[in-house]
């Protein structure tokens, strides 16, 4: 099963559960507050998923490690390499 079909199955499952509950297809008599929450639930989920995504990406951008040391080390190694290669007779 491809990742796409996995997603479609998951969405279909959740979607039909939601539809069945809001349409009252199961014959359940849900109390009014429940129905009021249930109806816009997909929109709430979508918004919170978006917030989670933004928060996670934002946090990861903020904590993205800057390798200053590695860059400095590389620069000094490059100088060393150039000197050593020139000594070994390399024409750049």
């Amino acid at each position, binding site marked *: 099963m*491809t*990742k*796409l079909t996995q*997603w479609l199955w998951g969405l279909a499952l959740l979607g039909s559960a939601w539809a069945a509950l809001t349409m009252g297809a199961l014959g359940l008599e849900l109390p009014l507050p429940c129905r009021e929450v249930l109806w816009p639930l997909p929109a709430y989920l979508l918004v919170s998923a978006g917030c989670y*995504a933004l928060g*996670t*990406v934002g946090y*990861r*951008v903020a904590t*993205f*490690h*800057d*390798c*200053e040391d*590695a*860059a400095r*080390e*590389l*620069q000094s*190694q*490059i100088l060393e*390499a*150039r000197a*050593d*290669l020139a000594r*070994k*007779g*390399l*024409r*750049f």
Partner: protein
Amino acid sequence: MASTGASRSLAASQRPPQGRSSRQDKYSVLLPTYNERENLPLIVWLLVKSFSESAINYEIIIIDDGSPDGTREVAEQLEKIYGPDRILLRPREKKLGLGTAYIHGIKHATGNYVIIMDADLSHHVSNLPCPVMKQKEGNFDIVSGTRYKGNGGVYGWDLKRKIISRGANFITQILLRPGASDLTGSFRLYRKEVLQKLIEKCVSKGYVFQMEMIVRARQMDYTVGEVPISFVDRVYGESKLGGNEIVSFLKGLLTLFATT
């Protein structure tokens, strides 16, 4: 289901027993180059230095795709300096793509492990023994360098590039659940036979190729270990990735999403 089971036992049976003498191990570094005249001698020098300091048996295979800037001529000089058993020149006539460069390189590789990396000095190679140790530690089929974990990271990136990189990585993780944190990094160590099998399966070109390799590896039940790497932005030369980088990334991502 039968095919997954078959590939699992196949992959498992190909894994050599653990604790094999490291003296027999040889690492072939594949360096596909195109206009890397400035960088190639430096990267080779760095590789030679870190391999010999940690007493690792190695060879460096340079696959130059007919660079007009004389990369090949510099490579020939390097072959003279370090010897033809250490530096192997396997040039091709023209630019033919990364996947075929690796196929071409593997044909000539005598090591039982293959390391693939960019020749543009964007990967910090002084911690090269790390992936080698990591592989031995967990007997992994693949060890992938990651910029997103531990001490790994980037240098010389502005905020925009960081946001794009993190955002793209987040979407990829959600959609593909690949079991590796860095899919577009190109600093990896493979068992030679694993790399051979994976390349046969992979159809993508360029940028997406690296992603597909890891995704297919997971499909085929190969084990993937990760080591943190520092990605230092190109020191010399211009990045070869153009403005349509994001578009081709998204195309590749959606293709993998729908087909794997």
